[in-house]
């Protein structure tokens, strides 16, 4: 496995802030990994993402310490315009990053600033619109799109830069549940297709965790949990960190505490029902006194 990025003992304090936003944070990911970053608002998720795309230390003022490497190079040695071609960023609110009035101009903005020839720009715009599935929006005004569509334009604009690392800072917070699910599914598909490394800061764990290799939870500028999702959910620390468990996972954990066993922890109702074989017909027969069946059922349990 090739290393995508590594933070070594990274600390950062914003000007005039009483406490550091990050305190001796170390985190590494291999190429192709999908990390979900969780934690209460203000715990340092956004600051960590800003360290990975070079906004910190290149453009932000504040006290920075530690070392950040992206694809094997120290980030302070790579100029921001070069980083922009390797690290894509999608913000919480699409309005914060849409620069043009028409969709295709917005998607073309990045490649244009790389100084690419027009045909190369066109090829990248076409590919990015196709990847995200918004070719039909190409000539639309970004202002008349829904929040979900705007967020897809922001994603396409990031992809047009052909990044290898994609950072998303609560990208679904302005979207309704159906659009949020749609968006995260799209990110997961792109990650598989384009071998992207993804770091996604997200509150909606029920929607994000099915795609995650690791759940990294932060509190007060530090990483306090870094495990595969099922391990992190079972670890019992997320609740005390103020991180809401998906309701179905909470139920599955409650059942585990009472002796039931799940291998992979279910996150959705479909998974739970599928896994638990809670078959009413079977149960009715049990009630009618089908002892043999009951014994077998117990045996399996």
């Amino acid at each position, binding site marked *: 496995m090739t290393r995508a990025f590594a933070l070594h003992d990274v600390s950062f304090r914003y000007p005039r802030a009483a406490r550091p936003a990050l305190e001796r944070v170390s985190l590494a990911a291999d190429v192709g990994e999908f990390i979900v970053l969780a934690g209460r608002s203000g715990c340092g998720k956004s600051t960590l993402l800003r360290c990975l795309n070079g906004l910190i230390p290149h453009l932000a003022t504040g006290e920075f310490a530690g070392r950040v490497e992206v694809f094997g190079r120290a980030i302070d040695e790579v100029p921001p315009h070069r980083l922009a071609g390797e690290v894509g960023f999608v913000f919480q609110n699409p309005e914060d990053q849409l620069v043009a009035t028409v969709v295709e101009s917005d998607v073309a903005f990045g490649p244009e600033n790389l100084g690419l020839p027009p045909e190369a720009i066109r090829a990248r715009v076409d590919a990015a619109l196709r990847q995200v599935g918004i070719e039909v929006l190409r000539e639309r005004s970004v202002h008349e799109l829904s929040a979900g569509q705007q967020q897809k334009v922001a994603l396409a604009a990031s992809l047009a830069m052909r990044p290898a690392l994609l950072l998303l800072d609560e990208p679904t917070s302005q979207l309704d549940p159906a659009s949020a699910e749609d968006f995260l599914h799209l990110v997961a598909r792109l990650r598989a297709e384009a071998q992207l490394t993804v770091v996604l800061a997200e509150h909606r764990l029920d929607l994000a965790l099915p795609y995650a290799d690791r759940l990294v939870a932060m509190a007060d500028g530090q990483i306090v949990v870094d495990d595969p999702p099922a391990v992190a959910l079972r670890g019992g620390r997320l609740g005390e960190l103020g991180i809401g468990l998906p309701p179905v996972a909470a139920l599955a954990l409650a059942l585990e505490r009472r002796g*039931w066993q799940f291998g992979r922890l279910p996150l959705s109702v479909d998974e739970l029902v599928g896994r638990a074989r809670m078959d009413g017909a079977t149960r009715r027969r049990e009630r009618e006194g089908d002892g043999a069946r009951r014994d077998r059922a117990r045996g399996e349990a």
Partner: protein
Amino acid sequence: MIVEIEDVSYTYPSGASAVEGVSLRVARGETIALLGQSGAGKSTLMKLVIGLLHPTRGRVLVEGVATTRTTVARLATTVGYVFQNPLHQLFAPTVADELALGPRARRTSPGAIRERVEAALAAHDLDQYRLRHPLSLSEGERRRVALASVLVGEPPLLVLDEPTVGQDALAKQRLGALLAARQAERRSTIVVTHDVEFAAAWCHRFTVMAGGRVLADGARDRVLGDRQILEAAALRPPALLDLRLRLAERGIVVDGDRPEEMADRLISDCRLPIAE
């Protein structure tokens, strides 16, 4: 009744009909979730209640007075409205000034204003930000200021537009506790939201809109447990309610709606194995 909406329709000047033949009554102490897709008419209906719009047909009464016969300023003393985007309602140079704006507009005495502002700063954990410019705060903090600035006026009816957007679990918990406290004080709240899980946990009446009309209005299980209603409004049921209904279809009855309660029932009622 704090609000009576009587057969109200509203058509925008462009000719687009946003609300059609809606009748709703809001009693004191009710906590109502107003659900529906974007464009279903929820925001227009709320603008009719706060008097920003007047019905093109029917009438809206707030505390018995038609919204057409009073002013937006006067209505604001009864109905507090918290916008989805806090930037739409923050104007003052400091947090403390922001909280004083409402009482000052209502000609409250300076001593009483000071008292209320201090109480609000403490209640909403904003004391450390009292001299900060609201725009220098984080999104979550701005939301708290916007909410506090409305609650300072102690409105009998509070309308929250998508209050859980971008909020973490603990912030949602606090918001829920606020709704419960208001209900205990017999104050009413309408939560306009896409967040079905939050609504299911904290609201007790569920009004679903689609295409400008009220599609359903009632208790949680009747509204959120009805597949047809959910489908028509493009809503997803809360996960554990969904599970309960699906188990019921298979002849397994599980009461309760918190994970621990449900687990107890599943364990005692359902001896089936868990297969991998």
